[in-house]
């Protein structure tokens, strides 16, 4: 067996003694190495005779280098054997690969057969099935399986750490939202009630009523924000049921059910897979992205393309619009709760926050591509897993 850790260092090992005649040397090698095949070839490296079962892969008349791939490139080294009695080229444990794995693993030994200007190649079956080699193979396999398991555990740990980091980030985000986004309207309420006290003292009932109306609007707004925030916090905590989903059908349903303004077209392209996922989540995400593409468009006409690409463990859907684009400095901020670049009446600024959180909860991710200084349009690309983590 070849020791892969300490392989032969040169092509001059196991050399027959120079004083011995070449045929006797060949005979000795035959006996010592358990040779089952012989090939003779002349100076032009064409096969002139062969013997033995192991030489079946090559025919008399073949150029040696046509069938004996391991010798390709060694022509000059083979010719170099001439006149150097005892020198051999040894290629241990070589398998000439075939689609049906029909050829045996061989030890190849080439030396110059002095009488007749011929080279001789000895073919011995490699002892690849020895107990030692089987054990080595077993150990290599076990090592790889162990390393793969460690790598998988590491990836799981990394995933868990990312989830923990996300949960911590959520906590920080909620704290920031409560302290900023809700504190501000609360402060406004306090000022309004203080104003009302002054207005009542001054007897200005009309201004007081106006203030009361403002307070009503602000409390309604805060109530809507609180509802949205609770919904946002519950994303991923509800028992979501995964089911077989034809993703293209979801895209088609969305385009049918949305109010598409005249002048706008929606195209569905690419390869949409059938997957097992939470249909409602995918619907929510796509619906929000398409709606946003329409609402935030700055022209009376526009085109929105929904393009899917299938993958082995995940698939991607790109929502590509030709609107004004989004400055890269805002790409991260627009995914946060209560953030919008174009405030509109009745909007809580939670649409993309829901989208982002829903995708992240299911193990996917959302990428934004837009560079309005050089090109119109925005692409929201969502990477959606084909199966849900347990």
């Amino acid at each position, binding site marked *: 067996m070849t020791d*892969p850790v300490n392989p032969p260092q040169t092509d001059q090992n196991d050399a027959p003694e120079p004083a011995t005649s070449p045929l006797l040397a060949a005979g000795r090698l035959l006996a010592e190495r358990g040779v089952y095949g012989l090939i003779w070839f002349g100076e032009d490296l064409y096969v002139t005779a062969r013997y033995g079962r192991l030489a079946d892969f090559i025919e008399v008349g073949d150029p040696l280098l046509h069938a004996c791939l391991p010798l390709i*490139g060694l022509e000059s080294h083979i010719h170099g054997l001439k006149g150097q009695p005892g020198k051999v080229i040894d290629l241990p444990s070589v*398998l000439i690969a075939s689609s049906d794995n029909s050829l045996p693993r061989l030890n190849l030994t080439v030396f110059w057969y002095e009488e007749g200007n011929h080279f001789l190649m000895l073919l011995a079956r490699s002892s690849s099935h020895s107990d030692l080699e089987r054990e080595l193979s077993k150990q290599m396999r076990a090592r790889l399986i162990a390393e793969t398991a460690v790598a998988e555990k590491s990836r799981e740990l990394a995933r868990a750490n990312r989830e923990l980091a996300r949960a911590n980030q959520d906590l920080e985000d909620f704290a920031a939202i409560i302290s900023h986004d809700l504190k501000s309207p609360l402060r406004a309420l306090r000022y309004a009630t203080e104003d009302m006290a002054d207005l009542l003292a001054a007897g200005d009932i009309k201004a007081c009523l106006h203030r009361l109306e403002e307070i009503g609007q602000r409390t309604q707004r805060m109530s809507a924000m609180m509802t949205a925030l609770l919904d946002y916090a519950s994303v991923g905590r509800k028992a979501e049921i995964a089911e077989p989903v034809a993703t293209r059908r979801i895209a088609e349903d969305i385009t049918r059910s949305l109010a598409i303004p005249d002048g706008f077209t929606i195209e569905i392209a690419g390869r949409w897979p059938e997957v097992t996922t939470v249909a409602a989540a995918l619907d929510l995400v796509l619906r929000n992205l398409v709606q946003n593409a329409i609402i935030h468009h700055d022209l009376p006409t526009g085109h929105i393309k929904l393009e899917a690409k299938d993958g082995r463990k995940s698939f991607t859907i790109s929502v590509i619009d030709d609107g004004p684009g989004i400055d890269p400095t805002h790409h991260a901020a627009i995914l946060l709760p209560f953030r919008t670049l174009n405030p509109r009446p009745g909007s809580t600024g939670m649409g993309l926050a829901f989208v982002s959180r829903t995708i992240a909860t299911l193990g996917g991710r959302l990428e934004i591509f837009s560079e309005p200084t050089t090109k119109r349009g925005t692409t929201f690309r969502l990477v959606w897993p084909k199966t849900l983590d347990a």
Partner: protein
Amino acid sequence: MSAHKVMLLGEIGVGKSSLVKRLVFDRFETDYKPTLGVDVYRYEVPPSKTHAAITLIIWDTDGNFGEAMFRHVYMKEASAAFIIGDVTRRPTLDTMLTLSKGFREHFPGRYEALIVNKIDLLDGEPLNLPDALSHNRKRVFHTSAMTGDNVQFAFHEAAAEILRRGL
């Protein structure tokens, strides 16, 4: 048609055999059988606009050889080497750097490219390579023997480069 020897080097289990089997037989075997010694394959690259047809003799080596491979008779007259790592096992990527350095020292001027294999297992996660590998000036291919991604492309590019350099 000229024939040129290409070595596949890398740690055990990085997918050397899977890559060459995908290339030559267009198949992927899920059962792992370690290569003991070397397996030699023939692959013919068809002519293109820029080069003639070429035969690659691909030597798929035993991952246990490590740097000892560079002194082995197997390496004689190699025109090129692919140094392969498994994207999911960091130590195999570190080994790529050692083997790359060894190949440069023992076979200066030969074509060398790095293959980061099993990218299908990333499953959407970002590719996180060791800094030294990211900044290595060698050609780096990201492949999947399982899906076939980039496999043929890598070998065809190597063939074109071997001919261009007259290796």
